[in-house]
């Protein structure tokens, strides 16, 4: 006998929560306990009094499981609202990465040139290294990191995806 896998679709969720201790563990734990998958998760408070946080979760699941994920999240006591941005339609997804590259000579020049193409900013420089700040969709950052590998990539720090709906109204 072999274990069967379902086909999955990628969704980005915005989860508005009360900023109480343990809320992140509660949400992360719900995903592991019910066998859901987290591709990316970002969280920070979004109100002046730090009372409410916005969590952006990228997950992949079948349509049926997706519906369950949303219902299970909404069931948690400190959760205000869950929005499936992917199902909602047009929305903006961005990620920020800090990319450290070391090298000299042609590699250094090539790194700078590529950074310009990708609109990455230099936020730290030494004689033998750069740190680039690059924002964009995950694909763009993946590509940039891939290119930097050729010219002396040292390490990468990425924020994970934040997302918001397009247009005038809140999601």
């Amino acid at each position, binding site marked *: 006998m072999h274990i069967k896998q379902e086909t999955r679709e990628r969704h980005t969720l915005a989860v508005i929560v009360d900023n109480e201790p343990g809320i992140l563990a*509660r949400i992360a734990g719900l995903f592991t306990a019910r066998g859901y998958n987290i591709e990316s998760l970002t969280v920070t408070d979004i109100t002046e009094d730090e009372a409410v946080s916005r969590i952006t979760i990228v997950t992949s699941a079948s349509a049926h499981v997706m519906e369950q994920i949303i219902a299970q999240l909404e069931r948690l*006591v400190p959760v205000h609202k869950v929005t499936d941005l992917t199902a909602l339609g047009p929305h903006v997804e961005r990620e920020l990465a800090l990319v450290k590259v070391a090298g000299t000579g042609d590699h250094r020049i090539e790194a700078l040139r590529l950074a310009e193409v990708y609109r990455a900013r230099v936020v730290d420089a030494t004689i033998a290294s750069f740190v680039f700040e690059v924002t964009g969709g995950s694909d763009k950052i993946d590509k940039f990191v891939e290119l930097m590998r050729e010219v002396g990539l040292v390490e990468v720090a990425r924020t994970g995806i934040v997302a918001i709906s397009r247009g005038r109204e809140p999601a």
Partner: protein
Amino acid sequence: MTEKSGADILIEALTDLGVEVVFGYPGGAVLPIYDALFKQERIRHILVRHEQAATHAAEGYARSTGKPGVVLVTSGPGATNAVTGITDALLDSIPMVVITGQVPTALIGTDAFQEADTVGITRHCTKHNYLVKDPAKLADTVREAFYIATSGRPGPVVIDIPKDVQVATAAYTQAGPIQHKTYRPQTEPDPALIEQVVDMLAAAERPVLYTGGGIINSGPEASQLLRELVALTGAPVTSTLMGLGALPASAPQWLGMLGMHGTYEANWAMNKADLIIAVGSRFDDRVTGRLDAFAPHARKVHIDIDRSSVNKNVRVDLPIIADAGSALRAMVSLWKTRGHPKPDLSEWWRRIEGWRAADCLGFEDRGEVIMPQRAIRALYEATKHRQPIITTEVGQHQMWAAQHFGFEAPNKWLTSGGLGTMGYGLPAAIGAQLGNPDALVIDIAGEASIQMNIQELATAAQYRLPVKIFILNNEYMGMVRQWQELTYQSRYSQSYSESLPDFVMLAEAYGWKGIRVDRLSDLAVSVDQMLAHDGPVLVDCRVAKLANCFPMIPSGAAHTDMILQANEVSGEMDDEAKALV
């Protein structure tokens, strides 16, 4: 305003909330609370012998009275021992508040003596939980915890209180109206959806009402409304294990329980129905069997208070998010307002009577050997006029009790359904007896399960609770043995109950009356002796050793693949079937 200690604030808040009984066990991290309990007389503390039993006793109290069960245990092992009962309450939607002591705030995270990360451990087996770090917030936290435990879909809530917070002082604030920031359970149904379900019910040719524990949780009125709806529509009713008693077992529309050990007529009716209305039930795997063969001809309506229950296992055509009682009330009222005539279901009932004729719960007595089914029926016949509260452990005896004991009213049947916790029955009976001092409370047990919380014999003795335990002793973990017989060619791996105690002497050692019975001709007399004694009694009823619980739908099989008798059983299942629970 004079300030009070956190411990006094806790007691004051519990008293204001109407708490009468707390099940608990003291320890270092709750000494201030126990001292506060000592100095008051309004809350009665019941000392159990193990914290797991405190949680099951609270569940038994809650299920039989409709009030929340309250538990008080110490930090570390006190809290971890309570985890099984907390999880049990989560799966069966039992309102429960568990107060755990914690090491002083300054010691949290230092691996202090009897420290455990209680909020971490219980985060996913509670409906919600709290760590209270400020005595000024304690009273409101307790009130919020009760509100969350008892409203919406009920469940367990843990409040972890560090020892220094129990000692530190603050002003006691009176309760204001509870308005939670985020938690807003939906209890009233959308009237447009009620219109739709009533249309569907009026038009259905082969309807089935599939009811569950949600009706019991909604309160006794929901069961009355179900009876009214059934009288108006004539629709047949089946129920989950948790929903027994909502419709009287003597009602002509009652089909019996459905699912793995459900009746032939209930499962066939589900399979052939053109409309299934699920009320407060959740399409559990024990109920549905093989999903792609579940109720293939039926449109499905799901009335549930928890949106996450809808479309979880089975896709439904019409979800209605509401309290079971509110939805039933709306349906009954709309049916009457519209003046619907009672639908003609005679053709449907004719088919159901055909399935009933199979007499799927029938069994044959074997001379002087007591068949377990016979023992349950004898118990039922001798006690039904007293409307007893029945608790069970988990296993064959539990299923036989569900099949052969007739429940006429809600809140009389207390069993561990979702989690399937052996050791539930005795402490639950203790809790039920405390909440219903004049009721006859019987734990129908197995000889294996009863040993999981056997220490609670002492609790019943201490509080002079006239609880009865009726053990169906077949010297096996019967359900394990049955599965081994059906799926592993009778390789009885570790399922024999070796080195059993002498249950009669054990009962007597705890101050109980003990009775042994092993002949059919003595059965009725023994039951009468048990009932005649006004204190706690344990009956060791020796039953047929290798009896199997039928009907049975094997794991992963369709409702129509029911096994009715032992001779239909094959010896070994394939890997796909073995992998299912």
